[in-house]
C-alpha cells in the first residue's frame, strides 16, 4: 500500500475526498493545507492523522511517514517542493506544466523515486475516450485534431492571465494525441491584440507526416460567459467527436428554453491518481511525462513568438525557429 501525502487541494476538496477514500493500492496518510478550516474538514473526512500547514513542515517533521507526494497546485513553479521531494527520494505527482528549468533538472533522475507530471485535461472523460479509441486502432492514423475551449475551468490562478495558462493544457492534449512535437507552429491572437490579456488565440499546428491541429482558446470570466469544450479527432479510419454541444439537456421554464450542460465532473482526478499509483507499483518509467511538459512549454513559446511576429515557426534541432 503506497502512502500518499497530498497538498494544494484547493477548491476540489470535497470531490477529491470522495476519490481519495477509494484508491486501489494507496492510502492518504498526510495532508498539507494552509487553510485551517479546509485542513480540518478534509483530515476528518479521510481520517488523516498527519496534517501540516505547508510542505516544509511536512518534510521536516513527518518525512518517514509517507512514500509519495501529490500536489494539485496549478502553480507551475514547484522549485523547492520538488527539490525537497527529490532529496527525500519521494515519488512525486504534480500537475503540468512545470517550469522549463525544473523540467530540465527532472529529465535526469538520480534517485529511485518516480516523478510524474500529469495533465488534468488529458484525464477528463472526453479525452480518455478519444485516446482509448485511438489506441484501439479504431480511428487509424490521426489526421486532424480540432479543439475549442472557451472559458476553461481548469483552475487558472486569478492573478495569472498569461498565454501559457490559456493554451498549455490544450497544446499538451493535442501533442499527446499525435504523440509528437509539432513540426510547424502558427498562431493568431484574437481581436484584443495583446496576448498578455489572453482574450483568445487561435493556434495552427502541423505535425510530422502531415497531421494538423487547430486550437481555439478564449478566456473570459465565467461570470460573463460559461465554459464550452469540444474536441474532434479525425483519423484515417474513423473519427471521434467529444463535444459539450452533444451533451446539453434542456431547461424549460418561464424564462424560456436554456441549455444545461452535463458536467464531466471532477472524478477525473481518480484516473490521475490511479495512473500514478499503478506506475509506481509496476515500476513503469515516467520520464516521458517530464519531457511532455518540456514539449508543451516549448510549443507555447513558439506560439507566442508566432502570434507576435505574424510568421510561422518550424522545429529545427529541438527548438523552434522562424520559417
Amino acid at each position: 500500500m503506497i502512502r500518499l501525502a497530498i497538498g494544494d487541494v484547493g477548491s476540489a476538496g470535497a470531490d477529491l475526498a470522495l476519490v481519495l477514500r477509494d484508491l486501489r493500492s494507496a492510502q492518504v496518510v498526510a495532508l498539507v493545507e494552509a487553510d485551517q478550516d479546509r485542513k480540518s474538514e478534509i483530515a476528518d473526512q479521510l481520517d488523516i492523522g498527519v496534517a501540516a500547514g505547508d510542505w516544509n513542515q511536512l518534510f521536516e517533521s513527518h518525512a518517514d511517514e509517507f512514500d509519495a507526494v501529490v500536489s494539485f497546485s496549478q502553480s507551475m513553479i514547484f522549485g523547492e517542493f520538488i527539490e525537497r521531494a527529490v532529496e527525500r527520494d519521494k515519488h512525486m505527482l504534480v500537475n503540468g506544466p512545470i517550469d522549463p528549468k525544473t523540467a530540465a533538472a527532472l529529465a535526469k533522475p538520480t534517485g529511485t523515486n518516480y516523478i510524474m507530471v500529469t495533465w488534468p485535461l488529458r484525464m477528463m472523460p472526453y479525452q480518455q475516450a478519444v485516446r482509448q479509441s485511438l489506441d484501439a486502432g479504431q480511428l487509424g492514423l490521426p489526421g486532424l485534431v480540432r479543439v475549442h475551449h472557451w472559458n476553461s475551468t481548469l483552475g487558472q490562478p486569478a492573478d495569472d492571465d498569461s498565454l501559457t495558462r490559456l493554451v498549455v493544457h490544450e497544446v499538451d492534449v493535442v501533442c499527446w494525441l499525435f504523440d509528437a512535437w509539432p513540426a510547424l507552429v502558427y498562431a493568431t491572437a484574437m481581436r484584443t491584440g495583446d496576448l498578455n490579456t489572453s482574450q483568445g488565440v487561435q493556434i495552427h499546428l502541423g505535425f510530422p507526416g502531415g497531421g494538423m491541429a487547430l486550437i481555439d482558446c478564449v478566456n473570459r470570466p465565467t461570470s460573463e460567459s460559461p465554459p464550452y469544450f469540444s474536441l474532434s479527432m479525425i483519423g484515417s479510419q474513423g473519427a471521434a467527436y467529444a463535444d459539450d454541444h452533444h451533451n446539453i439537456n434542456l431547461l424549460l421554464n418561464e424564462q424560456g428554453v436554456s441549455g444545461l450542460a452535463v458536467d464531466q465532473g471532477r472524478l477525473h482526478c481518480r484516473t490521475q491518481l490511479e495512473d500514478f499509483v499503478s506506475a509506481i507499483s509496476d515500476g513503469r518509467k515516467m520520464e516521458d511525462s517530464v519531457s511532455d511538459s518540456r514539449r508543451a512549454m516549448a510549443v507555447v513559446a513558439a506560439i507566442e513568438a508566432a502570434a507576435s511576429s505574424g510568421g510561422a515557426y518550424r522545429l529545427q534541432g529541438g527548438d523552434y525557429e522562424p520559417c
Partner: protein
Amino acid sequence: MSLANSPLEPIPVAILSVVKHDYIPRGMLAHTRFHAAVVADDPEQPEWAHERNEAFAEELKVPYVRSVESALSDYDAKVAVVSSAAERHCDLSVRAANAGLHVVQDKPMSTVLTECDRVVEAVERNGVKFMMWNRNFLPAVQQAASAVADGKIGKVAAIHVDFYFAKDAGPPISSRADDDPPLDWLEYLIAAHATGADGGLGHKPMGELEVEGIYPLAYIHVVTGLRVRRVFARAKAHFHQLQLDNDVDDLATVTLEMDNGIVGSICMGRIGNASHPDIGEIKLHIVGTEGSLVISEARPEVSVYYRGRPDTIYPHLRVANHNDWLLADHFARAIDEDGDTPLNAHVARHIFETVHAAIASGKSGLPVDVER
C-alpha cells in the same frame, strides 16, 4: 436584362452541361418561376457527357442540342444554369452572360483566377445577374446569421467552420500495389456520378479545399460580410488513394485573418463513410464580444431507424430545408428588382482567391496574403 415590369413572368432556363450532380438545375426548376427550355453542350464534348445531358433533357421533356450558341440564341432563355466540369464553368458562364442571360453556376467558380476575372467582367459589362450556388439558406446558417445581425453575441471576434463530408472517394491509401499505375482522376470521377460524389469532375484533379471550400467560406461571408486578408493552411491526402495519386488534398485546415481583425478557421475533408452516421459533422462556432454561438448546420432533423436500413441512407433526415427554393426565389427577385444575388460574382471570386491562397500556404508552410 430585367423582367421588372412583369414580376410573375416565367423565366426560361438553358441548362448548359449537366454532366455531374444535377441538383442545381433541379433546385432552380423546383421554383415555379423557372422552367427548362433546353439542355445543351458543346459538340466536341465526349459521348459520355452527351449521354448524360440527353438523359436529363429527356427527363425534363425539353430538346437537347449539341450547340451552346444555339441554346443561348434560339430558345428564348433568360437564365443559364452551368453544371459542367469545373474547368469549363467560367467559359460557359461568360458565353451566357455575353448572350444576355443571367447565370447560375455550380462550384467551384473555376480552376484558374483569370477565368474568374472574365466572369466578373462579363457579368458587369452585360448587366446580368450571377449567382454561385451555395447553402447559405439552410435554416441553421440563417439562424447563425440572424443571431449575429441581431447583436446577440456582440461583435464577432472569431468564426470557425467545420465542414467534414463523411464520404468515401474511392479506395483508401495503400490499397494499390507499388507497381500499379496511379489512379486516373477523370476515370474515377466519371464513375462517381452514380453516387453523386462527382463535384470534382474534370481533367484537372481538385482537392477538397478547391471543390468544397466555397461552402464554409460562404457561411463565413454571410455571417460577417467581410473579406479574408491572409491565410495559413495545412493540407494533405490522408484518406484516399485517388487524392494521393493526384497530389491533391482530402483533408485541410485553414486559419483566416479577416478584415476588422476577425480570426477565422475552416476544417474540412472527405473523411470517409465510417467517420459519421450522416453526411458529416458540419458546425459553426462563433465567438463574439458578448457571447458565443455553437451551431449544428444539419438542424432541424428527424431521426429514423429501421431494420435493413441501407448504409447509404442517413438515419438523420434534414427537415424544413428550403435552401434550393430560397436561392431560386432570391435569384428571381434579383432579376425582377435589379437587386443583388445571394452570392454574386465578386464574392465568388474572392472565395476562389482565398482557396488558392490556402492551397499555396499548404504547400509552402507559410502564411499567404489573399490578393485584392
